[in-house]
């Protein structure tokens, strides 16, 4: 059986909106009607836009329904070097809401060493139960040990939903676990909702570099698994008297071959504030003209308690390490405040930062695309504007 797009040429009015919206150039017009070629991935963008409802994506044959033994919401609580990642608390807050809607418990899985403190913290932020695997072999991250450990926990606890942070660690090993347990996985979600009646998780994520959004479900398999982008969900308030419990989980190590060996963990960020978790980011682009002018960016970032970001142009010029690069080939960030200084705003940069809450753009070129996404724009010479920003902040006691 081969799946092709279903086009009802009688309904089609020949408006061509499907042709222009197709991300894959899979549609063309022939005799006033759309024609689909082999590039089609059945993504459904055309069906969505068609005013006549003339296009349909074929539905996959419904197989057996999901296994009803799977109940509850579980989050993977990432920690690195003993520090629980912020995204774990964000997931707990959302997970609580989802669990309450479904009338089930919220659990967390925590892997590493000396987990008592972190586990208690997870209870305070809303987990009913925290499964811990405390083992020196989980102290550092390897896909093999983490993937196997989470798979075993899922097979034993059987949650219907599993959420993890879309961090370098989560995006690395969660696909292994999803493959092992045999379920679908939605990447890098920015929105989660529940269809309570069908007990379906509606997972919305950007694709195509953030230029299209897709809502994805996993109707047949359990758990429904998603990685969720840090900083898009809100963290809740901690409770002083949490009721939950900590349950050590007995891992069977026999299937873990040790073919991946972690030799060393090297911390490398030159800045105090981590880009991915920063509330404020001040980013510099090619407009800075020279490496030494990044000192302006650093000073402003420091005054605002923020992290330093950069466009690909600035990184390629060798002015600042790649670790600071924001955009499609760098980091995706979503701070409360993003200040773009001398950054042109190529679409590859925009996709990495356009979900920031407030964006300030400072650029000498009024046509620069960065202004398309800006909340506040200043057209001017950054070498005048930024020193003035610093002066006024300092005068205000910053």
């Amino acid at each position, binding site marked *: 059986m081969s*799946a092709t797009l279903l086009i009802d040429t009688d309904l089609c009015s020949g408006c061509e909106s499907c042709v222009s919206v197709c991300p894959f150039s899979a549609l063309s017009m022939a005799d006033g009607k759309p024609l689909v070629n082999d590039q089609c991935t059945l993504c459904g963008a055309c069906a969505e836009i068609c005013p006549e409802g003339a296009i349909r994506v074929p539905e996959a044959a419904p197989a057996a329904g999901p296994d009803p033994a799977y109940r509850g919401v579980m989050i993977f609580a990432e920690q690195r070097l003993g520090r629980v990642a912020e995204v774990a608390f964000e997931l707990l807050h959302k997970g609580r809401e989802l669990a309450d809607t479904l009338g089930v418990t919220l659990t967390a899985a925590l892997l590493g060493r000396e987990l008592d403190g972190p586990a208690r913290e997870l209870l305070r932020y809303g987990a009913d139960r925290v499964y811990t695997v405390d083992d020196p072999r989980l102290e550092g991250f390897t896909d093999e040990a983490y993937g196997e450990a989470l798979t075993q926990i899922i097979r034993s606890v059987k949650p219907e939903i599993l959420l993890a942070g879309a961090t370098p660690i989560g995006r690395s090993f969660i696909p292994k676990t999803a493959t092992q347990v045999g379920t679908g996985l939605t990447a890098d979600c920015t929105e989660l909702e529940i269809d309570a009646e069908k007990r379906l998780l509606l997972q919305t994520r950007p694709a195509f570099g953030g230029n*299209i*959004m897709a809502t994805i479900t*996993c109707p047949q398999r359990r758990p429904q698994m998603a990685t969720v982008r840090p900083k898009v969900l809100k963290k809740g308030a901690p409770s002083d008297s949490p009721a939950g419990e900590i349950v050590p989980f007995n891992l069977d190590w026999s299937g873990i071959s040790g073919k991946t060996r972690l030799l060393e963990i090297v911390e490398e960020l030159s800045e105090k504030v981590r*880009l991915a978790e920063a509330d404020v980011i001040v980013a510099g682009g090619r407009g800075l003209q020279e490496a030494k002018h990044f000192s302006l960016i650093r000073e402003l970032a420091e005054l605002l308690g923020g992290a330093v970001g950069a466009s690909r142009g600035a990184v390629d010029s060798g002015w600042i390490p*790649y670790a600071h690069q924001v955009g499609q080939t760098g980091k995706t960030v979503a701070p409360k405040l993003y200040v773009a200084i001398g950054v042109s705003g190529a679409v590859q940069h925009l996709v990495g930062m356009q979900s920031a809450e407030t964006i300030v753009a400072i650029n000498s070129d009024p046509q620069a695309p960065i202004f398309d996404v800006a909340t506040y724009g200043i057209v001017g010479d950054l070498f005048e504007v930024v020193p003035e920003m610093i002066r*006024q902040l300092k005068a205000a006691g910053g």
Partner: protein
Amino acid sequence: MHIIVCLKQVPDARQVRLDPETHTLIRQGVESIINPYDLYALEAGLRIRDERGGKVTVLTMGPPQAEDSLREAISYGADEAALLSDRAFAGADTWATSFTLARGVEKLAPFDLILCGKQAVDGDTAQVGPGLAERLGLPYATWVRKIEAVEEDRIRVQRLMDDGYDRLEITLPALLTVVKEINEPRVPSLKGKMRAKTQKIPLYGAADLGADAGQVGLSGSYTQVMRVFAPVRRREREMLQGPVEKQVHDLWVNLKNRQLIPFDVAGSR
């Protein structure tokens, strides 16, 4: 050494522009290219081959025209190529994609190393590499920014993390996904371009891979795309006016009102 590089043909994001009015994509005349990250994977493979001998095979699943991307990879220096193409493969999610690629890899066995890009710039999932490794029972590392050493039976790599990097040693055969920091890809050679024109590229469909229709494409996928829509950009933009001093002042007042800065700059003028 036999190195397999998985590459995907994608629409060229560099040609995609945002319509400043509607904030939708302008995709007119967008060409298909090799996923940018996959060129770094290819280069990494070619360097290991050039140093240690052996061959590089490029593998893709895609529509018939994905063959162009394989030929392009040959012009860069890949030795062999294989195309997995079948109407039944359409609409695959990463579960079905990694299944199909795994069957394709088995056709090319034995091998020592599989290289993938960090992610493909259309689907953006970064799930195919790890999924494929698991299907094949291989150890793997993602986000590889440096290959430190390659030996007969093991490889040492650096994996990029948020706050630095990890050094790992992995037993071969293994799979790596690479980030752009890993190298600077070469340009196609004249000799390569000539060979790209004539090289025979085997094509495998679902039947050749011993896969039934229920395992591949849309019907073999566990995730379903319910809806695709343009992102809402609900930003009202304000261009600040006046002399620099006033613009900056207005900015701080606005940011203060949004509770984004702790300072009160109101009296600073």
